[in-house]
């Protein structure tokens, strides 16, 4: 587990439940190519979140009658493991998981060049091993790296980050307690170079002014995580050029 570095510096405005500043991300780490069988894969650690994404495809699509003549079909499943939350989660997909699968699929679909693979399908599977707030945006961030790892052509990376309102303050990267007890949650995902928003949801209450502040914070956080996405992919490329294939799959 990545160590949570408790920062004891003087904070600007108020103390967040985990001691962060209002515009500070939790500790994060992205690693690509962590599963042997998948065509592409990645994991993200963001605070206590641990999320693993795998990509299979492009491959023949079943059943036949669903095939799209002019582009690939992108499937996407967001799924929480039973031990990922404090109370055991039933392995059966909840309505929440079904909704999130749909909005995540939309976000990734904006970037993947599906026209390159008519009649095929690309599967993205996201497994939340441990959840601590803002899983949907972290999932997108990992899935995008897994797609790149699988060599799927994309218009841009897709990277997600959340902002929110807690105890009257606008904050970056909403944690578990802030999510439960806070006033609002604003998860977004963007294509950073194309400057497009591809996931946008909001829960809770914010004025237009607060929304603007939160949106800008989330953009800033997303750009930081985008750098980490690039790092993860660079590390993989380096290990592929310097090491034998056997070593790539080595964990830790």
């Amino acid at each position, binding site marked *: 587990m990545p160590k949570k570095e408790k920062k004891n510096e003087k904070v600007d405005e108020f103390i967040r439940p985990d001691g962060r500043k209002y515009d500070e991300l939790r500790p994060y780490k992205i690693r690509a190519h962590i599963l042997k069988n998948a065509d592409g894969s990645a994991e993200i650690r963001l605070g206590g979140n641990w999320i693993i994404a795998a990509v299979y495809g492009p491959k023949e699509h079943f059943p036949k009658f669903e095939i799209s003549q002019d582009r690939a079909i992108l499937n996407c499943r967001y799924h929480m493991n039973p031990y990922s939350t404090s109370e055991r989660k039933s392995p059966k997909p909840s*309505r929440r998981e*079904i909704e999130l699968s749909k909005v995540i699929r939309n976000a990734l679909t904006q970037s993947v060049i599906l026209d390159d693979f008519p009649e095929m399908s690309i599967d993205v599977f996201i497994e939340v091993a441990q959840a601590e707030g803002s899983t949907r945006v972290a999932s997108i961030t990992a899935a995008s790296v897994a797609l790149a790892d699988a060599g799927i052509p994309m218009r841009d990376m897709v990277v997600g980050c959340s902002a929110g309102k807690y105890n009257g303050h606008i904050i970056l990267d909403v944690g578990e307690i802030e999510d439960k007890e806070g006033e609002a949650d604003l998860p977004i995902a963007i294509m950073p170079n194309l400057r497009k928003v*591809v996931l946008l949801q*909001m829960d809770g*209450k914010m004025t237009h002014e607060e929304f603007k502040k939160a949106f800008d914070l989330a953009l800033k956080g997303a750009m930081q995580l985008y750098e980490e996405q690039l790092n993860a992919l660079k590390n993989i490329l380096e290990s592929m050029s310097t090491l034998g294939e056997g070593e790539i799959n080595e964990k830790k």
Partner: protein
Amino acid sequence: MRRNNLKKNTLHELLMANNVLKMAKENKRIDGRDFLDYRPIKIEPNVIEKPDASARVMLGDTFIIVGINFEIGTPFSDSPDKGILITEGEVLPTASFGAEAGPPSEEEIEISRVVDRSIRESGVVDLSELVIVPGEKVLKMFVDFNIFNDDGNIVDAAVLGTVAALLTGKMPDPKYIAEHIDEIDKISLKEVPRVPIPVKDIPISTTLALIGDKFYVDPNYVEESVAEALITITHTKNDEICAVQLYEGALGYEQVFEALNISLNKSREIRDILLSMVKNESTETNE
């Protein structure tokens, strides 16, 4: 976007979709509306007598019924001091050529959850007033909405219908039940005295389709099918944003704020329409 439905569209719909795009170049909508105009709205509360609250909404040819029922239930362990709100929407197979009977589709789950958040997050119903005995018994409020005919913009119609039903319906008195808690197994909920539902806000959702860099307010079915992006924004009566959902597509950063501003203005306008219709109907039917 409605990609799943596209392949089931009739030839008529495909031709109409083409028309939307052609007329977009001439700055026109296929039904002659202005880009920022809603279609005619008709709201009829208390249209069904069986549930505790109900309303029918016609938004152009989009036809939807909302029914609200209260039951006695157990609160969730992490919110012992709150009643329970459950929102379920079904696009009936009568609604369009592509609609199907069966367990809720991904799309039906999404719109139910957006309607639910619009209601829940605005605080329209103060769930703490639904408590009978804290941690033990609360009222469970079921909001069920059904789309009988889908001509687009289901969510706005459903939010309108839900708020209209809440404003005009009655619920079993939780205080009365608390005082008779020992006989709870023998009480028929229908015989408990009614009180108004504790409504605290009037949230209004507005849905916008992006077609060729222009926002279309209250998109109809065909406009939705060709939209590059589709977004719902819900505002409280104090002009706060209380729910946002980008269903499909992508928006430029600036477009997000353009959409928020359009939505704010329309929400004030629609709220007035809602209140005038509910006032008329509620005196007509309730007194």
